[in-house]
């Protein structure tokens, strides 16, 4: 960990100003991801602006009947919020499938969205990694890649997005509110929030430098039965090999997104339209064009089975 300076921001505007003014500055919320990365010197911020005392920790109803979730709401509070449990069950389930109670007590909504990937080579600063050091190469290609992405990858990076919450947010068509140095707030649809690696794997999010996530909004509830199934090598406290977030309606239609398989929560609307035809049709369309490695090709049939399980659950 490199030496750094620290301040606690008094307002969102002050926080943004501080990060914009200092080269190499970063926000810190729960710190559960950032501090680990700093210890490995994968992240080397010069200055940390602590946003935890900003007034962004409330969950409010929106005028349209949706929900506005402050960026600093903890994962625990979000998952246990009565309206989330009632109207957005997929979100609640996805969150509690992640990490542990202690981590969820610390982790914030904003930080969770921005958590970085879990490719094993990303964590070893002695080996090439295009995400860590653009242009150095990708060690995962030709290496141990069982946990990595099968689709949406590029020749430069095959890391998957490891998050659970984001998969549910994708199914719910959440929008991310971000404020910039000019005090302007824009909203980014979650479909556009996570960037595919293409030629710039180090650029992971649609957030611009200095932008602060202030909230995540959910449209009004869409009903249906809500499911999140996470497959992993042990029963808890592990990242997904494959996860499925789904909202299913009685007529057989619904929405579905996959986690652990792509650099972003993987939702393909055209594939989703196949839901009435069953899991095989959905997965065939969703993973059309997939480029798995030998180690992780099993994720595609596994995704199909996980979806079949969720559909069976939905039928009761």
């Amino acid at each position, binding site marked *: *960990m490199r030496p750094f300076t620290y301040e606690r921001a008094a307002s969102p505007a002050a926080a943004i100003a501080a990060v914009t003014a200092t080269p190499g500055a970063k926000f810190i919320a729960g710190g559960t991801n950032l501090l680990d990365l700093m210890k490995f010197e994968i992240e080397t911020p010069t200055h940390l602006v602590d946003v935890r005392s900003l007034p962004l920790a409330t969950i409010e109803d929106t005028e349209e009947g949706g929900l506005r979730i402050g960026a600093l709401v903890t994962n625990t509070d979000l998952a246990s919020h009565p309206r989330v449990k009632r109207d957005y069950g997929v979100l609640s389930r996805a969150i509690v499938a992640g990490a542990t109670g202690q981590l969820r007590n610390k982790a914030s909504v904003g930080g969770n969205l921005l958590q970085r990937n879990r490719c094993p080579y990303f964590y070893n600063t002695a*080996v090439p990694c295009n995400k860590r050091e653009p242009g150095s190469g990708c060690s995962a290609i030709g290496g141990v890649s069982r946990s990595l992405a099968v689709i949406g990858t590029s020749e430069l990076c095959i890391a998957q997005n490891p998050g659970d919450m984001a998969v549910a947010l994708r199914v719910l068509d959440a929008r991310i509110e971000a404020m910039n140095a000019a005090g302007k707030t824009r909203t980014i649809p979650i479909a556009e929030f996570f960037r595919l690696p293409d030629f710039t794997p180090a650029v992971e999010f649609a957030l611009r430098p200095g932008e602060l996530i202030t909230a995540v909004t959910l449209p009004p509830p869409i009903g249906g039965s809500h499911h999140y199934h996470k497959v992993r090598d*042990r029963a*808890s406290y592990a*990242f997904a090999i494959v996860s499925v977030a789904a909202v299913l309606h009685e007529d057989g239609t619904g929405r579905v997104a996959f986690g652990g398989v792509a650099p972003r929560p993987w939702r393909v609307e055209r594939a989703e339209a196949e839901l009435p035809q069953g899991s095989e049709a959905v997965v065939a369309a969703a993973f059309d064009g997939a480029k798995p490695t030998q180690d992780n090709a099993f994720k595609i049939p596994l995704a199909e089975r*996980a979806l*079949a399980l969720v559909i069976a659950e939905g039928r009761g």
Partner: protein
Amino acid sequence: MQFTTPAGRNPIDQLKVVGKPVTRVDGPLKVTGNARYAYERHEVVPNQAYGWILGATIAKGRIIQIDTAAAEAEPGVLKVLTTLDRDPVPPGFRATVHLFGGAEIQHYHQAIALVVAESFEQARAAAHLIAVEYETAHGRFDLAAEASGAKPIADRDSPDSPIVDRVGDFDAAFAEAPVTLDESYATPDQSHAMMEPHATIAAWADGTLTVWTSAQMIGWHREDLAHMLGLDKEDIRVESPFIGGGFGSKLLLRVDALLAALGSKATGRPVKVALQRPLIINNGTRRAGTMQRIRLGATRDGRLTAISHHSLNGNLPGGFAEAAVAPTRLLYGTPNRDLALKLAILDLPEGNDMRAPGEASGLMALEIAMDEMAEKLGLDPVEFRIRNDTQVDPAKPERPFSERHLIECLRTGAERFGWSRRNPSPGAVRDGKWLVGLGMAAAYRGNLVTPSKARIRLERDGRLTVETDMTDIGTGSYTILAQTAAEMMGCPLGSVKLALGDSAYPASSGSGGQWGANNSTAGLYAACVKLREAVAARLGFNAEDAAFADGMVTSGNRSVPLAEAAKDGPLTGEDGIEYGDLDKRYAQGTFAAHFVEVGVDSFTREVRVRRMLAVCDAGRVLNPITARSQVIGGMTMGVGAALMEGLAVDRRFGYFVNNDLGGYEVPVHADIPHQEVIFLDYPDDKSSPMKAKGIGELGLCGVGAAVANAVYNATGIRVRDYPVTVDKHLAEAPQRA
């Protein structure tokens, strides 16, 4: 005390304290945070500086140069030591790598520098600034690829076993057998994954060295340090009173202690050093992965006529072979056998001991093979094992087992577990989306006897102080030693004070190979016999007929408080146990039957263990609570081995990529269901005066196979390559059930 003939009746047999379910005497210290582990011993010496180890980032080759200038210029940095500053230290006991010194790199994350600084953060940050130039050499990292060059090798821990261990005529018997099995199995490299990292604080004073460390074997650590530092061992003190798990990783001296000592010498400050988790995995030792082939031949009525077990693993040059064939020597009676180990050269971190070395890996294969064979024979797997029990060493029929009640383990377990309700057709039982299966395995682990010494003092106030360098690695040594002293001296448990894990005390067996409990208590037993003699002499009793009970010493109708004996000054008994040839004349082993029920998700093939039972035959149980903890810990580790644990090697860079506890997964609470443990109580009078045997490793042996067999029974899919993960299962089961 020489133990050369079977134990007769002795004071331990009263079982007033020994054998009772006593909770841990060190429990309150642990739960209040007052049991200090090596890295937290802030109080032992002032002015501690922090060391951070830099590991090599190539797996094989040489260092051309190391530039430490930038690191040395960092604030707070006191000293940077590099491997180029000195000649390689000689390898330690039972080890082949040199821990530090010289330009040669033998494996990834070999220690190449130590930064000592005022703070931990300063040391770590400075270490990142060290620039190293390497010359990389070709390394061998793929066991399968090196298999063809592998050489037969003796079992380090069974030097009397022939390199190729043949009894009868295996080839002929196998050719003639009406029912045969020939299958291959693989176990992965594993990490001990103990909670507490390797850690040491070292301080010098007047040419003598003290290390506060985390060691299973005080004596081995002290001798290795002396050897590596060129000191007399009398000038080294090793203290390790509390240890947060070891599982074999802390049997041998590791680089934390060596570098703490060198760093302290170089700076004139006490220095503390811990191994970072990635270094525990890539710089420490591993349980070497194996490729095993098993051939069985049997008569139609299920008698094994031929057994062949070959195991291959890889290690650094000079390293040892994982003795996976060890259990096959003694578990089943077969007239014809063929057992062999082969070793390939791999430039990976050294393969060395991990809990139940040999047996754990061997049984993971052998006990699947037995399940497969039972199915071929149309026999129940429990019955098949019963039919092939032996009461003598199969290679030396004149050598009986001291005690062996495997059949009773199997029968008791089958009855308790409801084995008769198992449907022998795989994939036949459903519970909603779950495919349900039952599996079992037999287990064997040797009982090792080894000398152990202790001292016990009767203080003026009638309390007792026990001193021995025995360690408690979380197993309960404090508790069973207290029970032994209380039983022998007729005192309440609360009057026994224990001082353990210090080289200033008499040398014990230490903890490892499941030998700790029996041998260390036997050593204390010997010391107590001496103290009883001293007390009797002081009080004017005849030691032979004096009874020690309820704080009184009694003979005939005279009864005197024990404390009387020490009213003019403490009395000491010091002795140790030494063994004759009872372990040569009798095969001494521990036995178990493991039963497991699993549910397998019919969609995703995720496995959930639902119930587990172990029935153990392991001599006298000194304390059913601590013994049970050992067994359920072993069963948990067995679930890990079966379902998730495995180090993934990058075959280009030569290192284990899942080198933290996020990537190297061990079971969490949610993976472990209700576990039941039954002990058959058969004191073994040939093992020691305690009549106890090992338990700590038996709990792991066989569990992995029992889980794998249950998965097979649930699904009809046989995965022979551990761990049994969804991807391997799916590869075998393209269709959904």
